[in-house]
């Protein structure tokens, strides 16, 4: 399941909902991305996105993970709008019978969404406002994973 929302999320509640009424899950991995103040340089972060395409890309990325690993459930929640340092940005949860698939799929989902989901961060602080540039290592991490999974 994927969700794009302004509101915060409750990790415990999300995992409980994912596990509700099932006893086949053996491993759950979660990742939370949060806003860093970068030693005082960032006072606020705004996430802009492409409504409609963000949802379709996250759905596609999630389906790709399910095609590559034996996942029993997964969840991606991405926030948009204006956030403060310490706020949650993104949640990825993966569930499988054994831990390897859950760990690997969670990393894949994060690496892949960083290169494909149409979201853009703008940081504001004492030094002004700037759009965050995508890091080349994110692109290479995603292509490395895709190559590995293709083997």
């Amino acid at each position: 399941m994927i969700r794009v929302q302004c509101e915060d999320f409750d990790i415990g509640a999300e995992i409980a909902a994912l596990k509700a009424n099932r006893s086949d899950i053996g491993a759950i991995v979660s990742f939370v991305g949060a806003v860093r103040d970068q030693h005082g340089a960032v006072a606020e972060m705004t996430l802009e996105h492409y409504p409609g395409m963000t949802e379709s890309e996250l759905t596609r990325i999630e389906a790709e993970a399910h095609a590559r690993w034996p996942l029993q459930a997964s969840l991606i929640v991405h926030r948009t709008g204006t956030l403060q340092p310490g706020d949650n940005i993104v949640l990825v949860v993966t569930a499988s019978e054994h831990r390897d698939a859950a760990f690997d799929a969670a990393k894949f989902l994060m690496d892949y969404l960083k290169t494909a989901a149409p979201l853009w961060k703008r940081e504001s602080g004492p030094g002004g406002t700037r759009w965050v540039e995508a890091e080349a290592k994110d692109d290479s991490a995603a292509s490395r994973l895709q190559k590995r999974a293709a083997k």
Partner: protein
Amino acid sequence: MRVLYFAWVKEKAGIAAEEIDPPSGVTTIAELIDWLKARGPEFANAFARSEVIRAAIDRTHVRADAKIAGAREIAFFPPVSGG
């Protein structure tokens, strides 16, 4: 067709969305960028680093050589930085 701009492409172009009707000689994303750039200094500025600008046709990522025929919605944006 409808064209959307996001993040700093939108800020530089000074517009978020518009309807356009490019001439028939404009057949690819790269040609559309060239046509948009020629419309005014704000578009020339927005697309100055055209090699880094990403595009989507009907909400699917495409490359600069993608054909635009039949597209309903084309979006231009910087490399994504979510997550």
